[in-house]
């Protein structure tokens, strides 16, 4: 187990203290944040995603800091979206030149893959993706018939 340095400001309320405790315990079992890495089960790691629903579309968000677009592969078959890629080692292509001293290395790297089944009623032909600030966003528009409509109530 690693010892974690607390920020100098100790949280003032007990509420935030327990939030933090929960967070630290979760972190112990989080392969992304510990040294266990993907080698534990020898399969590609599944990056965490958020899926947001808007009136006209879904958006899938995935944190991939430092991963360039060309190292991400996004495919769609029927209603199944597959996100694949490789996160390069921190010093990849930059071999040790002598006096580099590593103090802390918490970064997970290796290949990753995640498969997501899209809900019914999405238009898989119009899926688009972009990345910004290390977050990949995949936009999946809904088909017109799946969009929520307001029905006018007519009084007689």
């Amino acid at each position, binding site marked *: 187990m690693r010892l*974690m340095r607390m*920020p*100098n*400001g*100790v*949280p*003032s*309320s007990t509420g*935030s203290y327990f*939030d*933090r405790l929960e*967070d630290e315990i979760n972190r112990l079992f989080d392969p*992304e*944040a510990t040294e266990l890495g993907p080698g534990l089960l020898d399969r590609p790691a599944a990056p*965490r*995603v*958020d*899926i*947001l*629903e*808007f*009136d006209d579309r*879904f*958006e899938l*968000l*995935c*944190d*991939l*800091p*430092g*991963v*360039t677009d060309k190292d991400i592969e996004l495919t769609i078959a029927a209603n199944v979206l597959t996100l694949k890629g490789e996160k390069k080692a*921190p010093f990849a292509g930059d071999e040790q*030149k002598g*006096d*580099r*001293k*590593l*103090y*802390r*290395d*918490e*970064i997970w790297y290796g290949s990753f893959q995640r498969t997501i089944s899209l809900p019914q009623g999405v238009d898989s032909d119009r899926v688009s993706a972009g*990345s910004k*600030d*290390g*977050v990949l966003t995949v936009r999946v528009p809904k088909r017109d018939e799946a969009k929520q409509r307001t029905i006018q109530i007519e009084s007689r």
Partner: protein
Amino acid sequence: MAAKELEKAATVRPVGTIWEENGVVHLRLEMPGVEKKDLDVRVEDDQLVIHGRRTELPEGARHVVRERRRGDYYQVYTVDDSVDRDKIAANLDNGVLYVTLHLKEAVKPRRIEIKTG
């Protein structure tokens, strides 16, 4: 001072790599989702404070799946006298923050020339 801005929200510590090379300490911290305008890197007395604010949920959206860690990124490092405070530089690229801290000449390891004769 630093503690005050934390009272409201839960924060996460950014994970990263820290190394020293040629008299420069490098910090490489992963802070996905933080824009340059929402990032605050400052030196306060003997503390290097790094605070990256993440934007809230966009309007009209609701979560269907929520697995990513929430909260601002926050980390405080103690900077001692061996670091040249005027030369601290930070760069944000593709969700990764790079900070370089130059060590003062006096604390760099120095090889002493041995003369013969």
